[in-house]
């Protein structure tokens, strides 16, 4: 029951953040355009690479683009839904607004995550969606109801994995105001999963499948959509749950430590 209450509260907060986007229309448009430019640069890079080679680790141009598109969907969702984690150090704790969060009768993580409103990520999401659909057609993969359900499901799970990893690194907020940079530097490792992980050495492969399992955000789901490996992707919900349990436990521990030292 408590979980249901929390989810309903989370969606109320999300609704509010959508309303606020409408209030800042111009900011929103400018943000989305700049995000489009950033994505365009990444795309150009892929084009350039394929002018020099036929495939990357056995993946052709369309497959790589599909992987790129599939990556952007959960990254877009996570960017929107978990953005406020970046603000814990530089905004909430620094301004003293963190106390206000601690006085609410809900878990502070829920309050903070509910305050997220990174609307530029909407651009990420739609670019990803468009490229994914276009490449599925190009690769003549039939877009069945089952495939759509899979894409929705694994995109949400992927976003949750990114969110959990961000939550773990947001713990640095209790020691430094510049925690946003700590989170950002680990979060950016998702870019590894924009290419087939077989191109990396053992260390990076272990890093992104086991330690910070970004490979489950888009690489393994794309393998499944392409019919290259159908089973390993089903580990991702379990990984998401485990990661969130670890994240919340560690976060609570750090919070207790923080409350005993004073601020």
């Amino acid at each position, binding site marked *: 029951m408590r979980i249901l209450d929390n989810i309903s509260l989370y969606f109320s907060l999300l609704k509010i953040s959508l309303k606020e986007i409408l209030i800042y229309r111009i900011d929103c448009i400018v943000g989305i355009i700049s995000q489009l430019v950033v994505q365009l640069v990444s795309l150009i890079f892929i084009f350039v690479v394929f002018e020099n080679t036929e495939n990357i680790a056995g993946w052709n141009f369309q497959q790589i683009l599909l992987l790129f598109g599939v990556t952007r969907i959960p990254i877009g969702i996570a960017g929107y839904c978990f953005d406020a984690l970046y603000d814990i150090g530089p905004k909430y704790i620094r301004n003293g607004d963190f106390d*206000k969060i601690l*006085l609410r009768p809900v878990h502070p993580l829920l309050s903070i995550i509910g305050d997220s409103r990174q609307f530029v990520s909407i651009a990420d999401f739609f670019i990803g969606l468009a490229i994914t659909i276009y490449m599925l057609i190009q690769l003549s993969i039939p877009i069945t109801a089952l495939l759509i359900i899979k894409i929705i499901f694994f995109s949400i799970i992927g976003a949750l994995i990114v969110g959990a990893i961000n939550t773990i690194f947001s713990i640095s907020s209790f020691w430094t105001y510049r925690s946003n940079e700590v989170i950002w530097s680990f979060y950016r490792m998702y870019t590894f999963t924009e290419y087939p992980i077989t191109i990396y050495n053992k260390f990076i492969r272990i890093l992104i499948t086991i330690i910070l399992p970004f490979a489950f955000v888009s690489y393994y789901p794309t393998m499944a959509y392409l019919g290259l490996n159908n089973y390993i992707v089903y580990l991702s919900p379990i990984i998401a749950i485990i990661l969130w349990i670890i994240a919340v436990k560690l976060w609570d521990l750090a919070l207790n430590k923080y409350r005993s030292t004073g601020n």
Partner: protein
Amino acid sequence: MAIIEVKDLVKTYKIMEKKEGLIGYFKNLIKPKYREFDAIKGINFSIEEGELVGYIGENGAGKSTTIKILTGLLTPTSGSVSVNGIIPNKNRIENNKNIGAVFGQKTQLWWDLPVIESFSLIKKMYKIPENEYRKNLKRFTEILDLGELLEKQVKNLSLGQKMRCEIAATFLHNPKIVYLDEPTIGLDVFVKENIRKFIKDINKEKKTTVILTTHDLRDIEDVCNRIILLDKGQIIYDGDKQKFKDSYGKYVIAELIIKDKKKDIVLNDAEILEQFENKLKIKFRHDETTIVKIMDEISKFCNIEDIHMKEEELEDILKEIYKGAHKC
């Protein structure tokens, strides 16, 4: 049983010792040295349901630290705290359901939204029953005159309007205990009175326990019936407000209108605060002398036309205490 129980509460902070200069900075970086600082040095008090308590003291006396411990934002170094039967630092979220808090200028409302939407989010967060919410909203709108404000965005409100909404938001879920830390800072006199009236009315209606921290002692004068006075982390007075004034307000201030002053007035038993050609302001202890004796003395220098006397206000008494004139 008391609603708030504080026993032998101690809070010690670790402060990094800052060394001077660039070399000092590097030394800090490599091997920081810490110094301990006792913000609260073993305090005890208990508060009954429905009490209106003024928690006062100078800056750095330990008021905010106490409030932060009572709300579970900080954990005590030693000693125990129980609020409504809950240990706040262990069951913070459970404790949050019973309490409300206003911390100075920090708003709990959502900046970009109309006030009413913040209220309905708070309703959802605290799971306030619909009829309870409607009833409170109607009542609060009436006392705090929120009518026109509810549809406005928080960022467009003036300081006074924002604080009125803030106070309403704090009481919306019928908290058993409310902590108000400087709720009237920077507000004009009408808003201050409005807020004080609200606190008193709600206290009467719902038996809400209120702990008020403020530097505006008229807040305390008007709202509270009990004072806890804190100095350097220790309680130096805890009890009835009127008794406090009776036992420590030993001074009387008198203003005299005089004429035909022959020379500068010098008095033995009274302190002269101001003296002009036709006006004199003095201060004396009513347990050492009487106004009759002093007037007798003054009449040697001039003729007295009129006299106006007033007792010391809370503010004057506290100033004396801080200066060390009184021993509590």
